[in-house]
């Protein structure tokens, strides 16, 4: 309006005023910069996130080990001399602990590593608190070892491990009641003597969880199995149900109130907060149907319900992408509707369905909140049995294990949690890569 007026009053003004154009161009540049900044912020956040997890978590894959000779004194661990495991079970880890204490002291002396000025209790403190139990398990599994001297390798205490990874320093040790600078110096000497070494730790990937005081022994084995069991259940239930539902909705259902209700339901279920599914699992599967807590079966069922909308949406999209001419061709030679769908449409839609399923599984694998409510946070040290019975045994799950470890006091568990995240991300990355390859490979243009 005002522009029009000035034009009219001025008679024949210059159509384009240079200063105005300059301002407009500056605004243009500014706007463009905002966009670039937004992109940079997003990407920087991604990089920062990944780097932070990597830098915190890579340490979890290597571990400090202590190896020394232990004489398995029959007088301590098998007083009756029968080598009967049932009888030997009566000896607790305390007995083995004393054995280890002596053996370590003897080994250090034999190798000329000085322990001067360090109380014997602190020398022993270099070992993981899990060590006596490991030795006991080893002996009970093979009673023939009693009476021999074996080379026993075990984890170093989490603080010693932290010292070699840079998490614990002389300064922090001075303030820490759990470790002393003298112990760290001793560890340095032991490393020089070859008793202590740092290397890749398979126990982190395959071992069971360990208690609060033994971060060095905590592993992901049970969590990985639990997650794998749940993924199996999700795959076996969600894929057929999701595909069947999509086929009905896309190929058979007529537009009516019933199908409208289903459509609205699916759209909304896809957006219901995951924790609500956890509440459903707790109320329905555990309280009402009486399924066990912490079991992969319950987690699997809950995740199945969560994954269904994803699979249904992907399946319907790929069914829709199959051109109607294929259906007409099959109907035209006298195939029934059902034969048309199962012989022609479904096979053609399969790559899309599988891609959607893998993406749905990847989502389910990373899901945490609903699993917290159905008791997957419980501390589990026994591996679940093989399926299908194992589906009902208590187990952990990868993301829940991460949460679990972050709730523990010892900072060594932060490293473990980040390490577990790396494992989780590697799984997710491989699943997504498979999905991308599937899509590239089988993508079809009609």
């Amino acid at each position, binding site marked *: 309006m005002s522009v029009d007026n000035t034009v009219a009053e001025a008679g024949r003004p210059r159509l384009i005023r240079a200063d105005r154009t300059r301002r407009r161009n500056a605004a243009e540049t500014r706007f463009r910069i905002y966009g670039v900044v937004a992109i940079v912020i997003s990407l920087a956040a991604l990089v920062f996130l990944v780097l932070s997890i990597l830098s915190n978590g890579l340490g979890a894959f290597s571990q400090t080990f202590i190896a020394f000779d232990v004489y398995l004194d029959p007088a301590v661990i098998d007083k009756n001399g029968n080598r009967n495991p049932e009888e030997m079970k009566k000896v607790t880890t305390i007995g083995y602990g004393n054995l280890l204490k002596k053996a370590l002291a003897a080994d250090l002396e034999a190798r000329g590593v000085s322990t001067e000025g360090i109380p014997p209790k602190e020398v022993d403190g270099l070992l993981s608190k899990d060590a006596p139990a490991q030795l006991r398990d080893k002996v009970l599994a093979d009673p023939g070892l009693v009476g021999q001297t074996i080379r026993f390798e075990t984890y170093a205490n989490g603080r010693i491990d932290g010292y070699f990874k840079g998490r614990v320093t002389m300064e922090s040790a001075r303030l820490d009641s759990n470790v002393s600078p003298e112990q760290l110096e001793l560890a340095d000497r032991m490393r020089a003597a070859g008793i202590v070494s740092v290397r890749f730790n398979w126990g982190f990937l395959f071992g069971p969880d360990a208690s609060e005081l033994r971060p060095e022994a905590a592993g992901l084995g049970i969590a990985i199995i639990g997650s794998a069991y749940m993924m199996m259940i999700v795959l076996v239930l969600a894929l057929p149900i999701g595909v069947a539902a999509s086929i009905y909705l896309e190929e058979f259902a007529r537009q009516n109130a019933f199908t409208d209700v289903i459509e609205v339901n699916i759209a909304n279920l896809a957006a219901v907060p995951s924790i609500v599914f956890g509440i459903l699992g707790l109320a329905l599967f555990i309280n009402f149907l009486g399924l066990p807590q912490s079991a992969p079966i319950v987690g699997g069922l809950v995740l199945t319900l969560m994954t269904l909308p994803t699979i249904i949406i992907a399946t319907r999209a790929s069914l829709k992408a199959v051109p109607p001419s294929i259906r007409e061709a099959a109907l*035209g030679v*006298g195939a029934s509707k059902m034969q048309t769908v199962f012989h*022609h449409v479904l096979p053609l839609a399969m790559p899309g369905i599988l891609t959607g399923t893998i993406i749905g599984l990847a989502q389910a694998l990373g899901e945490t909140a609903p699993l917290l409510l159905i008791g997957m946070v419980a501390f589990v040290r026994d591996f679940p049995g093989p399926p299908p019975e194992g589906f009902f045994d208590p187990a952990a799950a990868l993301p829940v294990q991460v949460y679990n470890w972050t709730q523990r006091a010892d900072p060594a568990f932060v490293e473990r949690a980040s390490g577990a995240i790396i494992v989780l991300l590697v799984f997710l990355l491989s699943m997504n890569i498979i999905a991308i390859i599937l899509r590239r490979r089988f993508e079809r243009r009609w």
Partner: protein
Amino acid sequence: MNDASKLQVTLPITPDTSAAVASSAMVREGEAAAGPDIKVAARNVDVFYGDKQAIKDVSVDIPERSVTAFIGPSGCGKSTFLRCINRMNDTIDGCRVTGEITLDGLDIHDPSLDVVELRARVGMVFQKPNPFPKSIYENVAYGPRIHGLARGRPELDEIVESSLRKAGLFEEVKDRLDGPGTGLSGGQQQRLCIARAIAVSPEVILMDEPCSALDPIATAKVEELIDELKANYAIIIVTHSMQQAARVSQQTAFFHLGVLAEIGSTQEIFTNPKDKRTQDYITGRFG
């Protein structure tokens, strides 16, 4: 533009009266032609899409072992009517067919006739070649398989070969029967679709503008094939091309605005049309 306005002026006939005229004429024609070799007969067929009526009171007889062409301007309902004959319209939501269509005297909507059986007896070839994305062999073998027409692999091989031969395609593809059907040229694909339809040994073949997506050479081949096939089958072909109708058919039906305006021997329709609308159409005044 001029033609269209003229049409409105010269043809103030309401659909109802025109339908009545057409149908009474048809029945008389049908009775005259009635005989042992009527394969498909339609009486008073109406088709509705929802509330919209697409076909109004069409009655027509299709003789055995000859080619019937359906011609008419776009949207006149000729394809819709064709799809009634093997009940392909069942697959469209909201489509309703009334009236009677018989195949060998048996009502095709009779519950004792399964729609799948009907489609095995009344094969169809579509406007755009639509081979399955499978091998050439599998394309042709699919129909015989689901209908249990072959007792073993050798018999199936035989059906596939003879169908491809009848479609005039065997010599061109005999070395690559395992190759994908979608890898053929457009004309070859359409002949593959014809072979696929023949393989089920239908009695009637419906062709919905089978050459509209093909070049002239491929069209000539398909027309040649139609001419050969008429020795064994009743063929109904919907076409946009009047020349094609004149070349391949013995009987021609002219559809206009969902009404069957005129039907008669091809010779007569093209040389001496009785209906004014037919005359206007074939002389190129509209359509």
